[in-house]
């Protein structure tokens, strides 16, 4: 309403942000758990006086640095870029509400970069004590980044009292802040184990490889119980209507619930299998498979979390199409074409009825629907419904279809949009 809409058709419907966000969050969580993995493994090397383990830590740090510092950091910037072009209004709300949370997170990010560079390049230069201290500083800064970002991410799902009082702290320490923090912390430890498999499987010394694979397996298996407990806590902390959306009302989310459950079993099973002595080629293949399972596991969770927020982008405050919940009635009265800033066809004539329909589609639907794309393809959905069924969908949006926002325009605009869907899109 306030900003222009980027006409992203094939990659719309959340596909672009899903891809970049899942990759980023997976690597970013590795950056947290992996930091603990590094420093505790270094402790282990000193305790056992084992040069092989220390050399492994050094190699693992190189891999860690190249992955988290480059792909991790830049996909993080990428998320910011992506949300700002896909939903500038929501991004603006987040930035203005949490500017100093983002700023605080940035200071931890600075500490992360400096400490990780120092950690990697000073194995031979610093005393053991100082080197370990730098490692702990890295982990502390990385976990604090998670702490801050967790508050902002979960604010979007459960903004709690912020919706009424607009208070920073109400939004930050929102109803799911603590369970989500524990959930993500334990998950990041599990991911550290998954990446540990990867680098361990490349060790040439069979004895050391088996030792490190078993050691990495513990990083999966030990926190897993705590991870499941925090998952249960997370679910219990969700407001009932969100739980209903995720687990009952949205058939599109069922495959992700199934995937999450299946991957839970596979993670445990895979962790046990990896602890068995096996040839290096097989362990490498298994490690790669485990990494992919971890990515699917986390992806399934992210889809559920994002799905639970529907039809909002910031729950109970701003709908996915950037219309504020409180503005819905006034917008419906005035009409979208009269209210939205970036609309060309304010007066509809027979000559511009399709163009006006397209503008309504852009403002109201494009944030969730792709055109011909892999996610939420509107063409497919329109073709699957008769014109009468399409009318029914519009009549039940926001009520019997609680994952869709109520239609925000007036009756005339509804007919223009339906006409556009039945003609241009159905074609």
């Amino acid at each position, binding site marked *: 309403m306030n900003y*222009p809409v980027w006409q992203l058709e094939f990659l719309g419907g959340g596909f672009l942000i899903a891809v970049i966000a899942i990759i980023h969050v997976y690597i970013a969580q590795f950056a947290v758990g992996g930091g603990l993995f590094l420093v505790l493994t270094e402790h282990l090397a000193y305790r056992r006086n084992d040069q092989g383990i220390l050399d492994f830590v050094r190699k693992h740090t190189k891999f860690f640095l190249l992955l988290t510092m480059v792909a991790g950091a830049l996909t993080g910037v990428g998320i910011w870029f992506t949300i700002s072009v896909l939903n500038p209004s929501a991004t603006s709300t987040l930035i203005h509400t949490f500017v100093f949370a983002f700023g605080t997170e940035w200071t931890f990010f600075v500490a992360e970069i400096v400490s990780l560079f120092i950690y990697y390049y000073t194995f031979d230069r610093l005393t053991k004590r100082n080197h370990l201290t730098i490692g702990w500083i890295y982990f502390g800064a990385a976990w604090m980044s998670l702490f801050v970002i967790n508050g902002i991410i979960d604010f979007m799902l459960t903004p709690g009292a912020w919706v009424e009082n607009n208070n920073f702290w109400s939004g930050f320490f929102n109803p799911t802040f603590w369970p989500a923090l524990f959930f993500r912390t334990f998950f990041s430890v599990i991911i550290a184990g998954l990446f540990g498999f990867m680098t361990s499987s490349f060790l040439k010394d069979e004895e050391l490889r088996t030792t490190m694979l078993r050691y990495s397996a513990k990083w999966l298996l030990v926190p897993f119980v705590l991870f499941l407990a925090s998952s249960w806590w997370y679910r219990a902390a969700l407001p009932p209507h969100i739980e209903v959306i995720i687990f009952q009302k949205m058939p599109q989310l069922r495959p992700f619930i199934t995937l999450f459950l299946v991957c839970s079993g596979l993670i445990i099973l895979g962790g046990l299998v990896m602890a068995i002595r096996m040839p290096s080629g097989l362990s490498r293949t298994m490690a790669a498979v485990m990494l992919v399972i971890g990515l699917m596991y986390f992806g399934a969770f992210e889809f559920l979390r994002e799905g639970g927020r529907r039809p909002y982008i910031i729950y109970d405050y701003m709908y996915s199409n950037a219309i504020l919940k409180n503005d819905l009635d006034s917008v419906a009265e005035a009409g979208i074409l009269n209210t939205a800033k970036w609309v060309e066809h304010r007066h509809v004539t027979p000559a511009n009825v399709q163009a006006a329909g397209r503008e309504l589609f852009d403002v109201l639907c494009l944030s969730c629907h792709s055109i011909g794309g892999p996610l939420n393809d509107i063409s497919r959905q329109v073709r699957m419904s008769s014109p009468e069924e399409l009318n029914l969908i519009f009549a039940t949006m926001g009520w019997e279809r609680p994952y869709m926002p109520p239609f925000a325009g007036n009756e005339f605009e509804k007919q223009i949009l339906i006409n556009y869907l039945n003609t241009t899109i159905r074609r």
Partner: protein
Amino acid sequence: MDAVSLIPTPDALQVHWFWLHLLLTLTTFLHFVAMNIMLGAGFIAFATPFWRGNDVMPLNAHIAKTLPYSIAFTINLGVAPFLFLQVLYGQFLYTSSVLMAVYWLSIVGLLIISYYAVYIYRLIDDKSGLGRLFIGAALLLLLSVSFLFSNNVSIMQMPEVWLKYFSDRTGWLLNSSDPALIPRYLHFIASAVAIGGLAIALYFEIRKRRGATDGEEWIKLGCNWFMVATIINFGFGFWFLGALPENAYDPATLYGKLFFIMIVGSVVTIIPSVAYAQAGRIIPATVWALATVLLMTLARDILRLTYLKPYFSLRELPYEPQFSPFLVFLIAFVGGIYLVGWMLKTVWNAKEVT
């Protein structure tokens, strides 16, 4: 339809705009310093072998070693000003980003590729053959990223060109109609090469003071790059000035006066910087050069306000005070500086251990 009606309504600030602008200017300055070092050093590493041949490979080995750091810090130090820019100018920035969305998002991919290219350049021994391909590719991509940033700034500051959206809503717009776009871009690139040259001189000066004996030649080379690029940049600077709207330096307006003072100040500070560099006094040359970068950063801030003056005033931004998050940020900021300082001191004082 006029451009004013398209400007989105801004959200409320939590502290007075002055604090946010102070943070914006300060962090932009830090970002520019890091960016200049990164881009300038990369440019010099790629360009110098064209006439010096493989003689400069020892220098390139040092540049290769430090480039990943400078990219990391450029990106990191770019995050903070990007944050504060969004808070103060989000209604303009988001709009321009949507208008050029495809190019804007491509920056992420371009940066990832250039970052890995720089790491490969660091890791391979052959800096003259295959190495030049990697540093060349990284440089080309970084120069493209800079051009896209210049474009976004240009579109953001010129709401009058936003109407182009209605003829192309697919995110493929660039602002080729801005006469200041090319000189602005070239001015930035030449600055980067100059500061990159000075950074090379400073790097070897510090090594020299710690006992290294291999840097005299590179100190001279860095200073020469600094001087030549600065002289060329005077040309780009005047071109840029000539392409700006007249009110940008109109002494009858406050912004015009301030802009004029900053530009004159930049010239006044860069001259002693070049002179010190030619005399081999790298530390004072660096101090004066940093003063120039700071003044140019301020000039850029003022220029943005001039461009947006018909549409926007910082004083008009809605304000709903909440100070406690700001306080937490300041504590984290100071704590972060202390922590980083401690880590750097620890490394600086460290001797090789076995």
